[in-house]
């Protein structure tokens, strides 16, 4: 009897422990589509709720930050890290390597989950922690050659003595933090998802770098363009998709002379190959991601008489942010700015002499080639009149919850990897040729060392020569009065229209003819107009002797920015804060009047007419509490779709290029009777008039229930949210009251937006302002998790605390780490 009682009690206890220790799958709505559910593993309850090991341990308070001392025998000198009231680390080191070690340590301390996730997502190792849902991502990364690109980058960095010393120190700093960590100190996401942080290495840093490459210089529309050309014919294609916008206002001012002879001018037009319709289902492309601005004005245009520089890179906004803020002080240099967790150094920032920043250049450096197989097993292909063997790489992908790893085969050709599974014919496939597959200059990361340690324009120019990709518009403004901008990077030499369409991969002649020499990369210094700027638009006017293209060039922000900068005078930092938060859209100001002019107002009812009049009176600002932005954007979409019915019909079945916004505006304004406005479904011949009227009425019908809502406005309608990196809604900040628009300087749209707003006033004393939507800590339980989000929403700034030395006492120190 006693024994049975004991056994019963013991089994109850063991059962309880077993249940509490076992992850239980539950059904939860997917964040992307709330109507669909997916099986989510919830963490084992016991370890997760135990206040000794679980999430309660991540509930952080200010009193947790007690001064820390570290012993690092392998470090050369001593390091002092002082954290200000926003938890920004100010690293005081005796040399750059020690500073990199400290940067690694503090970045891991605040952003470990982010680093782990970024390297896994980029390296195709997500399924290992989240299960079959991520298998497609993991396969795609292999097929896009991201892993190979990262391996080559890591290997290249090792060839540079300086870069590898910095990388090794940075990695050692991260691993020092990870190896000191006990499971109860793991970031809460590790506890939720039930996995452990891995030790860091250079390859992982290269994967993070590849993630940036993919975000910034991966974009192309080759398959889409080839299909559009095939379906619409050359004439219509040219009319709908012109490469040159007559209104363009390029980065390098129009009329800037080229003081060189192009090594190989782009004259010979690319051969149009009869490739036929391409029916691959293309991987999802991130559209409209880019909306970065940067500019600098000379002292002649400012109140202080010294230059001011501004930069707001637009990227996917997440919590935590892509950026981590810090200052580094060594005997060689004192600099401040933002870094990307996983990569050492400061990418955008300033030192005691000048400030620098970047926007994306976006030129197409990713081209597709059709491969003709010589055998059905696809082991060899035609190349320059002979048969070449493909390199077949078989890789295994671990998947959580599956016993066996999933195998995937990638075929590599001379051009690059075959990305898509075979089309119906079986004898042809498409190979991708991306600059990101190539080994970079081993010294590429020294660009940012050079920028951080430089003193003047000469140092800036020298630093840029080491930089390969993703190509960036590097803006510069110095205390000594110089301003400059350079669309900088490694640019392929192309024939006219080369790389716009899929090309024949059987001839090496269709490849890039080398790269543009660095002294022929366009740049401008102290232009007469007194400012330099970029907003992802064309780099140059058409007189630049090399051909380049991109489906992603901006056509509105850059023009508006240049117009504003020429008008402005006696500029202060506050003026630039307003400019960065400017919601005016040139797209609306040019598109809407053209559309309104076409509407047949006699067809409007007494309810519809006031809405028409309201739109007519709109100031084209996408402010959060206005209703016009909602009506305009909905009308625009409908008008666009109805206009391009002949392209839209193909959209669901094949990849096809959509015309650019500016061209649609131009056609509406200048050629309202163009055949493109004809609705193919009706026997009548429509013009812009019928399309504009019909789409306007349809829009009002669609919005009829919205229009009567008392809180109906741009912000409440579009519901802009900043999601947690793992898309956990509880850790995200939803429905933010923000304005902005993709074609406005304040380019908040579709989950993207100004990821770091920075303004630097040069002068004897540097004054800088900056802010990113988030906080320094990646821990949702930290007071520093979303610290600055409200300020960002309101368009406010922090004055950045640029410490002169470790004894600087102008602001309090919240926390400190002393090494050695």
């Amino acid at each position, binding site marked *: 009897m*006693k024994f049975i009682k004991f056994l019963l009690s013991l089994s109850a206890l063991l059962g309880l422990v077993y249940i509490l220790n076992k992850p239980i799958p539950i059904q939860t709505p997917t964040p992307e589509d709330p109507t669909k559910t997916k099986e989510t593993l919830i963490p084992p309850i016991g370890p997760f709720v135990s206040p000794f090991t679980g999430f309660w341990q991540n509930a952080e308070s200010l009193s947790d930050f007690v001064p820390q001392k570290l012993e690092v025998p392998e470090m050369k000198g001593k390091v002092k890290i002082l954290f200000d009231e926003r938890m920004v680390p100010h690293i005081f080191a005796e040399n750059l390597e020690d500073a990199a070690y400290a940067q690694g340590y503090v970045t891991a301390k605040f952003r470990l989950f982010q680093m782990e996730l970024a390297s896994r997502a980029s390296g195709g190792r997500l399924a290992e922690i989240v299960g079959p849902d991520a298998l497609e991502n993991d396969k795609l990364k292999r097929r896009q050659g991201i892993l190979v690109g990262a391996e080559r980058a890591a290997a290249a960095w090792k060839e540079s003595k300086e870069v590898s010393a910095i990388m090794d120190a940075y990695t050692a700093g991260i691993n020092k933090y990870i190896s000191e960590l006990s499971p109860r100190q793991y970031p809460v996401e590790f506890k939720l998802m039930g996995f452990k942080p891995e030790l860091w290495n250079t390859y992982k840093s290269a994967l993070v770098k590849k993630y940036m490459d993919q975000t910034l210089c991966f974009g192309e529309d080759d398959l889409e363009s080839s299909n559009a050309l095939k379906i619409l014919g050359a004439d219509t294609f040219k009319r709908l998709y012109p490469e040159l916008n007559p209104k363009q206002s390029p980065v390098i001012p129009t009329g800037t002379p080229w003081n060189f002879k192009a090594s190989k001018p782009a004259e010979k037009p690319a051969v149009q190959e009869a490739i036929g319709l391409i029916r691959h289902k293309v991987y999802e492309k991130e559209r409209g991601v880019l909306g970065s601005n940067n500019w600098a004005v000379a002292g002649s245009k400012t109140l202080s008489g010294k230059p001011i520089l501004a930069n707001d890179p637009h990227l996917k906004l997440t919590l935590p942010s892509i950026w981590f803020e810090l200052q580094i002080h060594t005997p060689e240099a004192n600099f401040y700015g933002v870094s990307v967790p996983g990569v050492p150094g400061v990418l955008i920032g300033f030192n005691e002499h000048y400030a620098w920043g970047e926007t994306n250049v976006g030129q197409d450096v990713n081209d597709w080639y059709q491969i003709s197989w010589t055998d059905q097993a696809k082991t060899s292909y035609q190349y320059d009149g002979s048969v070449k063997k493909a390199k077949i790489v078989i890789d295994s992908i671990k998947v959580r919850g599956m016993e066996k790893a999933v195998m995937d085969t990638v075929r590599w050709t001379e051009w690059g990897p075959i990305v898509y599974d075979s089309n119906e014919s079986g004898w042809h496939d498409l190979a991708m040729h991306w600059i990101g597959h190539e080994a970079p200059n081993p010294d590429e990361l020294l660009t940012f060392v050079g920028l951080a340690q430089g003193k003047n324009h000469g140092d800036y120019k020298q630093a840029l020569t080491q930089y390969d990709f993703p190509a960036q518009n590097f803006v510069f403004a110095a205390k000594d009065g110089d301003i400059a901008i350079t669309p900088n990077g490694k640019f392929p030499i192309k024939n006219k229209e080369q790389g716009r369409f899929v090309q024949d991969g059987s001839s090496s002649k269709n490849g890039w003819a080398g790269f543009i020499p660095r002294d022929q990369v366009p740049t401008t210094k102290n232009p007469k107009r007194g400012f330099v700027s970029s907003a992802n638009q064309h780099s140059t006017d058409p007189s630049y002797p090399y051909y380049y293209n991109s489906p992603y060039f901006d056509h509105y922000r850059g023009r508006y920015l240049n117009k504003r900068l020429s008008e402005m005078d006696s500029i202060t930092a506050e003026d630039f804060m307003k400019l960065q938060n400017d919601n005016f859209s040139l797209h609306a100001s040019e598109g809407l009047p053209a559309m309104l002019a076409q509407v047949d107002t006699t067809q409007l009812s007494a309810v519809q007419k006031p809405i028409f009049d309201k739109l007519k009176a709109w100031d084209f600002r996408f402010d959060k509490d206005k209703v016009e932005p909602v009506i305009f954007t909905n009308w625009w979409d409908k008008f666009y779709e109805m206009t391009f019915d002949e392209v839209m019909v193909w959209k669901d079945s094949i990849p096809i290029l959509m015309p650019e916004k500016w061209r649609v505006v131009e056609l509406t304004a200048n050629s309202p009777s163009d055949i493109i406005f004809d609705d193919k479904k009706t026997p009548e011949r429509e013009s812009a008039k019928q399309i504009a009227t019909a789409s306007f009425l349809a829009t009002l019908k669609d919005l009829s229930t919205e229009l009567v809502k008392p809180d109906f406005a741009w912000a409440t309608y579009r519901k802009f949210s900043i999601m947690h990196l793992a898309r956990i809604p509880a850790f995200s900040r939803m429905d933010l009251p923000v304005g902005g628009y993709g074609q406005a300087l304040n380019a908040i749209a579709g989950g993207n937006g100004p990821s770091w707003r920075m303004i630097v006033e040069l002068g004897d004393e540097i004054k800088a302002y900056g802010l990113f939507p988030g906080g320094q800590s990646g821990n949702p339980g930290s007071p520093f998790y979303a610290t600055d989000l409200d300020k960002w929403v309101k368009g406010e700034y922090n004055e950045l605390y640029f410490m002169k030395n470790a004894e600087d006492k102008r602001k309090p120190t919240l926390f400190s780490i002393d090494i050695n």
Partner: protein
Amino acid sequence: MKKFGLQTLIILVLGSIAQYFFPFWSIAVVAALVGFFFKYENSAASFAAGTAAVTLLWSSYAGFLNSANANQLADQIGVLFKVGSGYLVPATGLIGGLLGGFGAQTGTLLRKLFEKEEAVA
């Protein structure tokens, strides 16, 4: 009552130490040891004492961490699991309490296996 207080204290102290080094279930082992070495009249009393002690330990530690954090993380975890964040501290206490209760009871029943029938009577 004095005995109850001493048992609670031992569970609090030993339990905290054990859980610092070992997984969450170590609290059940501590409770079982206390249940084994303290002579309970019956297993129900042992269960009650173990439950009370660990509920106190888990809920007060969680409550302390939570108040220092001004509910910030609890609010988000509450949203994640679709429970009011106010329930998280009591729920934590309850789960710990069950481990403590079953642990202590099992310890007591184990001891009774070695005790002679007459000694108890």
